[in-house]
């Protein structure tokens, strides 16, 4: 079953002088449980595609159906609510809330979903355990390494039990050991819990681990390979 579908998706940025086609009639289906990397050179449209399917940006034309709903026709408030319950985000710069501990950062999403305290606490601790940071639960982001922060970000992305996780260059700021650890964790969550992951990346190590690799160039999909 497709969790993400785009049809003739285009995005044009109207600059001061020239209009830039960031995405040009992109048709894409991503099935539940996939571990997919979207790759391509800078300016190829990777982040734009992720932003649009994540409901953070609007398409110029075309349709985007996420978890069976056409998100291009949603109001801003509905879209925020939709993101909260359906999409997990992992950002390149981790973007944790600096004044909260690791556990509080993970609980934060569930708090907005109005989950009860016991459930929040148990799930946060179980996710931190899954990413190997159970012992760091009381630490704030500034007390953790980049790799640890990104693992907390993954735990936070999964806390809301999203339909899929969008990760924008998640390893860009990590060393090789941290990258390897993070990929192991995400792959395990994908295989054991069936979580769908979609990455945008330049990182060959991520590309090597992905089961499907979609290549974008100048806003077009130029290849779409699924590994055996």
């Amino acid at each position, binding site marked *: 079953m497709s969790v993400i579908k785009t049809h003739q998706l285009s995005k044009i940025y109207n600059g001061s002088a020239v209009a830039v086609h960031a995405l040009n009639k992109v048709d894409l289906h991503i099935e539940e449980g996939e571990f997919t990397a979207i790759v391509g050179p800078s300016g190829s449209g990777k*982040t734009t595609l992720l*932003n649009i399917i*994540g409901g*953070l*940006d609007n398409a110029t034309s075309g349709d985007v159906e996420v978890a069976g709903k056409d998100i291009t026709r949603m109001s*801003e*408030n509905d879209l*925020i*609510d939709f*993101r*909260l*319950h359906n999409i997990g*985000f992992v*950002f390149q*710069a981790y*973007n944790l*809330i*600096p*004044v*909260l501990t690791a556990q*509080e950062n993970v*609980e*934060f*999403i569930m*708090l*907005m*979903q109005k989950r009860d305290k016991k459930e929040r606490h148990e799930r946060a601790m179980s996710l931190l355990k899954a990413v190997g940071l159970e012992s760091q639960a009381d630490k704030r982001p500034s007390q953790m390494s980049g790799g640890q922060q990104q693992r907390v970000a993954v735990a*936070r992305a999964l806390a*809301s039990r999203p339909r899929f996780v969008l990760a924008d260059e998640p390893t860009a700021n990590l060393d090789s050991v941290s990258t390897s650890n993070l990929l192991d964790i995400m792959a395990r969550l994908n295989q054991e819990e069936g979580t769908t992951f979609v990455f945008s990346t330049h990182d060959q190590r991520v590309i090597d681990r992905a089961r499907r690799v979609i290549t974008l160039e100048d806003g077009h999909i130029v290849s779409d390979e699924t590994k055996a």
Partner: protein
Amino acid sequence: MMLVQIAWRNVWRNRGRSLVVMMAMVVGISSVIFLMAFSWGMYDYRIKEAIEKESSHIQIHNPKYKEFMEAKFTIADANQLDQKLGKDSRVKAVSNRFVVMGMALSSRSNVPARIIGVDTLEENKTTDLSGSLTEGEYFTGTKGIPVLVGEKLAKDLKLGLKKKPVLQFQDANGDMTAIKVKIVGLYKTNNSMFDGMNVFIPKEALQNAAKIKGVNEIAILLNDARDVDDVKTELQSGTKSMVETWKESIPELAIAIDTFDKTMFIIVLILFLAVAIGIINTMLMAVLERVREIGMLMAVGMNKDKVFSMFMLETIFLSLAGAPIGIFLGWALVAWGNHSGINLSMYGEGLSSMGFSNMVYPSLPVKDYFILTGEIIVISILAALVPAYRSLRLNPATAIRKI
């Protein structure tokens, strides 16, 4: 609850900057409190003095006396009013006066004078005139007509105790008349203008010289100043004479207080405005510094109401963190000033000419502390609106990528 927690912790993210804002709040609020208390203390004393020594709470005159200032316009129903006031438990004391405008003459100087004929016992209960004496005695042990004059008037006349100036004024027929009197006492209030023109004399002596019976001024001192308006209304409803409260009989003081209130309002407004601008500036910087974080919060599903609330809370916390300390410091300064007094004798002459005391005892009614607290809360909320609104205008997709 976590929103409150985040907002509170965010206040302390940049400890130095928050402390500077708090310091500004502390200095601003404590200054406002002390300034208000200092001025209130000054005016409160002036009002108290004006009531107790000069005008009393209420005065009654013949309307024509107020218009022409001629002694012949006496109060027709003075006896009835006196009886009525004698039965009123709210009235502490009443002085029936006969007042003429004239000149005080000595061999070396002439000074305009307001000559006040009083019942010596009644007057003392109303204005505690004997308490203001610095030399001599209160209308006792003398031959001839005794008078009490202000130190300033005596100085202007170049006369002292036991000297005999002449008081000159118009009688009932409009003819000039004069009486020789003897200074038996010198008084001093904190109002040098009052001391420079008022001469107190036994009423009968003045009435006989002026050939006028009756009184043209009734001064009423109440037990409780809050009854002024009620007593005035009741008196006015039963007489054709003119009944005035102290605010009406000393309009210059009422105007001065009104002007002072307006000036204070402007000063307080400017101080609060400066503090509010400081808060807005700090919080706008906080919003600009945290664009990526705000973008992330919106991206992961924090709705705009919550983002707005978070910045509102943060600004209010920042504002209110310093407020209790500022209020306490202000209260402590007022308490210290009230206990030891602030000596302004270096400006004594200028203050005295306006009726103010050289010693100021700052004081502020408790209700003013509550009003001030309310104002601080309102200003904090208003100051919070600008940065909170600014945070809402961010687009999550672009905000996340902001370096």
